[in-house]
C-alpha cells in the first residue's frame, strides 16, 4: 500500500493551484487576535438540547440546529439534531439530511476532495468536502469546508478508513444524529499533519481520480474548520452551559452554546479556571488510586469513561455492557491538572446505567452520573457538563488574561 506516498507528492501541486482557482475558501482570513472586538455585538448564543436524538437511541446526546447556505447566497437550509462535539473539529452532515446543492472542493483536475474520519471507537464517516456559508446564531463562517457524509458513496470507502473496526455511520440510525458540529480545541480537523507528504499522511483526505482513491495533501484552509475561529468576532472559543439534572436523569435538558470567551457580557470566564492542554488537546487527571491518566473533555462522549471494573470494584452492566452498573451509586474524586500547572478536584458520581435507562419508563435522556470503562485515559464526557459551565479555548486564539488556546476552562 504505497499509494499514499506516491499520490501525496503528486497532489501537492494540484491542490496548491486549485486553492487559487476555486477561491472558495476564505476562512482563516480573519484576525487571529480576539477578545477586544470593535464590531457591534451580535447574537452569540445557540440553543442546545440534551435528548435521545433523532434516532431516539443516544442518551446524553447534545444537539443543536445549524443553518448552511450556498456560499454568497441566501439559499439556505437549517438542519436540526446536529451533535455538538468538543472532541472533533468541523461540520459534517448526512447527505440524507441536506437538500442544498453545495459546491464541491476539487483539485484543478476537477477531482472532488473526499474525507474519511475515524472516531475513537473505530467507527467512521466518509464523503465529499463541500463549501458552505454557516450561520450559527448571529455568527457567520463564510465558505467553510464541511463534509457531506455519504449515505450512498460515490467512491468505495478506502481500506485504511474502514480499518478501525467500527461501523460506517452513514445513517441517522448509525450516527444517532443528523450530523456533527465539531467545536474542539483545534482550528482544523487534521492540521499540519495533512499539509505535507514529508511525514506520513493520516488516512483522512483523499482524491479519487478514475474512481481509485488515494491520499491527498490538503492545505490548512481547505481542511474542515472548527467554524468558530473563522467568525469575525467571538472567535476565540466557546462556552457550553447546561443545567443540573436529578440523579436518576431527566427527559431532556436545555442549555446554550455561547461563542467567544470574554468577548461579551454573557461569556466572561468569571471564576472558571484555565487548564491548558498539550499539543494533542489533553491534560492530566489523577484518580484516587494516585495514578495519573491522560484526559480530555468530550461532549461527544455520552458518559464519563475511565478506569476499569476490576480497579474500581464495580461491574459492567448486564444489559448495557459499555456502562458501569454499581449496586449503589458510587462517588469519586479526581484531580485535573493543566499543562499550565492549574490543578483542581472534581467530584462525580456513577450510577447503575441499566437502572438509569429504565427510570421514568425509559424516557430519561440527560444523566450526570453515566459512566463506563476506558482503562487508557480519562474521558470527561457529557455528565461533566451538567451544572458546570465549560469553556473550550481554541488553539492559537487569545482569550481573557492573554491566555492562548488550546485550553479548557471551568
Amino acid at each position, binding site marked *: *500500500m*504505497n499509494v499514499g*506516498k506516491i499520490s501525496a507528492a503528486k497532489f501537492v501541486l494540484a491542490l496548491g493551484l486549485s486553492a487559487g482557482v476555486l477561491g472558495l475558501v476564505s476562512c482563516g482570513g480573519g484576525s487571529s487576535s480576539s477578545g477586544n472586538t470593535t464590531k457591534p455585538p451580535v447574537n452569540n448564543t445557540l440553543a442546545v438540547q440534551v435528548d435521545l436524538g433523532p434516532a431516539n*437511541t*443516544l*442518551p*446524553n*446526546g447534545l444537539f443543536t440546529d445549524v443553518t448552511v447556505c450556498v456560499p454568497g447566497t441566501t439559499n439556505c437550509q437549517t438542519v436540526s439534531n446536529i451533535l455538538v462535539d468538543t*472532541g*472533533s*473539529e468541523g461540520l459534517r452532515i448526512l447527505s440524507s439530511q441536506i437538500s442544498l446543492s453545495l459546491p464541491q472542493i476539487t483539485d484543478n483536475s476537477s477531482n472532488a476532495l473526499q474525507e474519511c*474520519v*475515524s*472516531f*475513537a*471507537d*473505530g*467507527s467512521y464517516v466518509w464523503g465529499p468536502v463541500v463549501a458552505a456559508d454557516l450561520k450559527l446564531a448571529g455568527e457567520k463562517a463564510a465558505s467553510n469546508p464541511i463534509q457531506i457524509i455519504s449515505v450512498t458513496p460515490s467512491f468505495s470507502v478506502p481500506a485504511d478508513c474502514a*480499518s*478501525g*473496526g*467500527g*461501523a460506517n455511520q452513514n445513517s441517522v440510525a448509525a450516527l*444517532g444524529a443528523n450530523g456533527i458540529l*465539531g467545536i*474542539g480545541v*483545534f482550528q482544523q*480537523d*487534521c*492540521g499540519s*499533519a495533512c499539509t505535507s507528504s*514529508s*511525514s*506520513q*499522511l*493520516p*488516512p483522512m483526505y483523499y482524491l479519487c481520480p478514475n474512481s481509485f482513491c488515494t491520499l491527498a495533501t490538503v492545505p490548512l484552509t481547505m481542511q474542515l474548520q472548527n467554524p468558530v475561529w473563522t467568525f469575525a468576532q467571538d472567535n476565540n472559543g466557546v462556552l457550553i452551559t447546561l443545567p443540573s439534572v436529578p440523579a436518576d436523569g431527566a427527559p431532556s435538558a436545555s442549555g446554550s452554546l455561547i461563542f467567544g470567551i470574554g468577548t461579551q457580557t454573557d461569556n466572561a470566564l468569571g471564576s472558571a479556571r484555565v487548564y491548558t492542554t498539550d499539543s494533542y*488537546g*489533553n491534560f492530566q487527571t489523577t484518580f484516587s488510586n494516585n495514578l495519573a491518566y*491522560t484526559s*480530555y473533555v*468530550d461532549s*461527544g*462522549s*455520552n*458518559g464519563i*469513561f475511565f478506569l476499569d471494573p476490576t480497579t474500581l470494584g464495580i461491574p*459492567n452492566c448486564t444489559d*448495557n455492557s*459499555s*456502562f458501569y452498573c454499581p449496586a449503589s451509586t458510587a462517588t469519586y474524586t479526581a484531580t485535573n491538572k493543566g499543562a499550565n500547572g492549574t490543578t483542581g478536584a472534581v467530584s462525580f458520581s456513577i450510577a447503575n446505567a441499566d437502572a438509569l*435507562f429504565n427510570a421514568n419508563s425509559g424516557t430519561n435522556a440527560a444523566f450526570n452520573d453515566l459512566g*463506563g*470503562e*476506558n*482503562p*487508557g*485515559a480519562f*474521558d470527561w*464526557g457529557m455528565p461533566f457538563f451538567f451544572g458546570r459551565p465549560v469553556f473550550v479555548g481554541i488553539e492559537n486564539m487569545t482569550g481573557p488574561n492573554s491566555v492562548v488556546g488550546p485550553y479548557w476552562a471551568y
Partner: protein
Amino acid sequence: MKTALTIVLSLLLSAAPAWAVLGEYESSVTSDQQYLHGELRAMVREGYSLHQITAANRTVVKEYISPAGLVFGISWQGPTLPNLQQLLGSHFAQFQQASQSQPRRRGPLVLRTDKLVVESGGHMRFFHGRAYVPSLFPPNVPVEVVQ
C-alpha cells in the same frame, strides 16, 4: 526501567519496520511494511520483549512479544488511529462485531472476553488503545505491561 538491552534501529522513512500481528509469530509477519514509517526500537524486558515503532506522524505502536516469539499484546497512541485490521489480524472480526453491537454508547470502546481484550478510545487527533490475548502472556508478566 527494566531495560536490559536497547537497540535503536534508525530506519529511514522508506524502510520497512517489521510489524507483527496480535497472536502471531513476530518473525512470520512482513506484510505491513509500508504502513508505519519511522523509528523502530527493540527492547528486552523481564520476561518479554518489546518493539516500539514511532511513526513519522508521532503515532507510537508497541508490540509485546513472548519468549516463544508470539505477539501477546499491542498498544497504540498518537494522532492517527492505526490500521487495526492489520494489527489485530485474525482477531479483527471479533472486535468488529463487538464494536458494532454496543447500543447507547458514544465514546471509547472496550471488548473484554476471556480470550481477547481490546480497548480503543480518544478524540480527533489523539487515539489510544491496546489489545491483548490473555492466554499468550508469558509466565509472571502482568497485563499492565501492555500500555
